[in-house]
């Protein structure tokens, strides 16, 4: 009686994919729909509003947001480098790049925290205006995604990396899946940045 689930690591010949790859892409498809719903809400509320105010009216800082954009783009590059290092069997390089990726995520959240507290100190809360409601909800949900991706990457950097010894190929697949999620999170920010700060 064969118990193991097939194609967890090796691709199924006729589909050319392993289970994890399909699973993560389906998950990302649903994430696209989630943020699609949020952006649709933004559009409908903005178009229907009689008193729309752009981010600059509430002192949203473009330099800080641009710094955050740079931070996330950098983290995507290091994420791919971490994966590429595993493909070349260079584990110490993997550790380095993955560490930078996690730190970039952390840096992003620190800047986000500075932005949030500065808004609060000026008396700007989600309930103050419909723009701020959207700003806090969209960036807040994105922030939860950043924390989730950062947490899983930290796990893959630390205790999860033991798998490199026992099942290197499966571990590489995991890093790739995590990288796909991380790229999605970064892409969402690349849309959020102009929508909330510039337009």
């Amino acid at each position: 009686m064969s118990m193991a689930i097939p194609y967890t690591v090796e691709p199924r010949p006729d589909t050319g994919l392993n289970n994890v790859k399909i699973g993560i892409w389906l998950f990302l498809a649903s994430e696209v729909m989630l943020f699609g719903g949020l952006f649709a809400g933004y559009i409908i509320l903005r178009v229907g509003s009689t008193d729309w105010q752009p981010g600059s009216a509430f002192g949203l800082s473009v330099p800080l947001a641009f710094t955050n954009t740079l931070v996330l783009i950098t983290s995507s590059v290091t994420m791919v480098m971490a994966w590429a290092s595993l493909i070349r069997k260079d584990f110490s390089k993997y550790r380095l790049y993955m560490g930078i990726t996690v730190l970039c995520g952390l840096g992003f959240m620190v800047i986000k925290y500075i932005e949030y507290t500065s808004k609060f100190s000026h008396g700007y809360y989600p309930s103050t205006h419909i723009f701020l409601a959207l700003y806090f909800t969209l960036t807040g949900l994105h922030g939860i995604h950043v924390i989730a991706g950062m947490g899983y990457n930290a796990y893959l950097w630390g205790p999860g990396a033991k798998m490199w010894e026992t099942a290197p190929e499966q571990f590489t697949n995991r890093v790739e899946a995590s990288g796909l999620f991380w790229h999605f999170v970064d892409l969402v920010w690349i849309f959020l940045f102009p929508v909330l700060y510039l337009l």
Partner: protein
Amino acid sequence: MSLKAVHIFFIVVATAIAVGFGVWSVQQVQASGNTGDWVLAILAILMAGALPIYGVWFLKKMKKVGYV
């Protein structure tokens, strides 16, 4: 799609945002003339130039990895 394919797509989008942001900040400079806006504009233009170069380098480096 593999992470390689997604990364290339990501770099393309990031380049587009850099170009767009460059245009936006140049407009800001013309409107206000603040030195702060100058810094942002130059950074954005540098980024718009650097990202495609990085993308080409990345493609060469990852030649052996597939897109699926």
